[in-house]
């Protein structure tokens, strides 16, 4: 009985995973292999044509999603790392206030936040309208409904998910280890490059994971900020599922996206060094 106790304690979480992850995934997988239409119903035909069709029809959007997601992730990393570094090492007693400010946007709904970015980036909006009025920007300048606007929106929306894990990793760096590097003749830059940065890589990995995946799959930003010519794979899946009721195609697209993301993450983990990632898990 005693030996079973840990398994019994873990049982609820296994059930949770089974009911809310494994079962729906299996259902989706089965749907993705069916053919038919919403009126006559779908029948299982074990046809992979859904996958090949989806790939050939929507490869542009898939590639665009990866590019937008990747670009947004890089932008988040570029903005987020210094912010996390500042909060971890320089904020002193204001640390919790900055962390609170970081989470403050979450008190407003995701869609609303994105729409307000739309206002911000509008051609004659508060920002560009004013700048154009001052003659600092040409009248034809516009950002809204471009890929840049979508990437900016994705960056804004997921930035905290990049900052927080990096902050946690940096926060855990023993200040005495940093002092030790300085004691061993390392300059500030060398200390960062050889000690602080490598020790924070697990946080970077987690941050990239937590931002790249949702940013690539996100439909909202492309819809609100991207106009009609910058649709991402998330929009396609949404429309196919909710508007066109093409469940098999939508499911096949979802699985394709998942596979592409998993492969991407795998390559990234290998590039960063498996050891680093495992170390992050071990700590």
């Amino acid at each position, binding site marked *: 009985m005693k030996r079973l106790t840990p398994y019994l304690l873990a049982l609820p979480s296994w059930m949770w995973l089974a009911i809310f992850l494994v079962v729906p995934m299996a259902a989706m997988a089965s749907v993705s292999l069916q053919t038919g239409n919403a009126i006559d119903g779908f029948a299982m035909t074990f046809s992979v044509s859904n996958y090949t069709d989806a790939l050939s029809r929507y490869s542009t959007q898939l590639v665009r999603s990866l590019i937008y997601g990747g670009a947004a992730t890089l932008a988040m990393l570029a903005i987020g790392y210094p912010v996390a570094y500042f909060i971890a090492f320089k904020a002193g007693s204001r640390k919790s206030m900055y962390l609170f400010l970081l989470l403050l946007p979450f008190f407003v709904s995701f869609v609303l936040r994105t729409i307000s970015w739309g206002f911000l980036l509008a051609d004659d909006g508060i920002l560009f309208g004013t700048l154009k009025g001052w003659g600092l920007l040409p009248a034809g300048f516009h950002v809204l409904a471009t890929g840049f606007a979508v990437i900016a929106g994705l960056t804004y929306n997921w930035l905290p998910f990049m900052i927080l894990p990096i902050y946690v990793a940096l926060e855990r760096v023993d200040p005495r280890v940093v*002092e030790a590097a*300085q004691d061993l003749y390392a300059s500030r830059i*060398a200390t960062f490059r050889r000690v602080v940065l490598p020790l924070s890589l697990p946080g970077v990995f987690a941050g990239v994971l937590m931002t790249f995946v949702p940013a690539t799959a996100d439909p909202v930003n492309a819809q609100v900020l991207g106009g009609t010519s910058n649709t991402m794979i998330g929009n396609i899946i949404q429309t196919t599922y909710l508007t066109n009721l093409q469940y098999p195609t939508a499911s096949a697209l979802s699985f394709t996206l998942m596979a592409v993301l998993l492969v991407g993450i795998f390559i990234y983990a290998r590039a960063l060094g498996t050891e680093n990632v495992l170390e992050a898990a071990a700590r």
Partner: protein
Amino acid sequence: MAELNAIELEGVVKEYLSHGEVVQAVKGVTLGIAEGEFFSLLGPSGCGKTTTMRMIAGFEEPSRGMVKLHGQDVTNVPPNKRDVNMVFQSYALFPHMSVWDNVAFGLKQRKTPQEEIRRRVGEMLEIVDLTGREKRRPREMSGGQQQRVALARALVNRPRALLLDEPLGALDLKLRQAMQIELKRIQREVGITFVYVTHDQGEALTMSDRIAVMNDGLVEQLGGPREIYERPASAFVAGFIGTSNLLSGAASGGVMEFGGGRILVPELDGAVTVTVRPEKITICTDKPDGEVSVVPGTVSEVVYLGTYTSYAVNLGGGTEVTVFQQNAHDAMNTAERGDAVWLSWLPQHSYALGS
């Protein structure tokens, strides 16, 4: 001119602002540490010993005063430009690097040629007995091994002085004693000045050439282990180093009457406090004769400790003294609880305190 000291502190003060109030962690320390010396900063926690060391390393900037390394003023020089290295209290090894990379770090930062790095790191790992473990990560090693990696990482740079901040604190007693001997051996071998911060008086006495006993941000006494033990400069030093008995009274003509006995205090008059080490006192059942201090008392506790026995003897008036008797000649001195005894010691073992 005398040879230049390896380290020189001149009126060093460190002030902190804490809750709007200025707190002095170090209140003015002046001392010189000679080349090749094993020097200890000894004191209780909060006495300023670690702050003093961090000012030598460059992690703290003195509020006032001057730090000199080999006659050169380095008061405002950052730690990475100082030719001293530190062994941190919890080692502070780089967790993402192998033992080899940890030890090679300083040499790489100084752009030492590859060939020389390989040779020196190899030699150093041999000295600390870690050959064959180059590829290990710090977390895969025992406390004692990590300790030796930390030592190697600092020493491989051949610094002008090595600073050690309670480096043995995290080790168990047996290992600590072994490392004490080991440290002393390594210090002799490399001939580098060691500055050792500790709150463990036994450790300081065992290893040091000289000790600075610190209390409340000041050096209370500076001297060799014997001098500090036998001739404590203050009640604090007497109490902090080993066990000591403090006896106070009024003396006239070199004699202090004390509870039906007398304590010989040559050349002293007026109010006097003397300290007597427990092992200097002899317990007898009969009143001894001769030119000795003699005091009557009652045994209140007997603790047998193998090589010696510790007695607590009540002298009346709330004074209790501790007496250590070697068990070599216990035939003479088997006192038991409740026995009325005479304590005696030679005049030179009563040491009058400065304060």
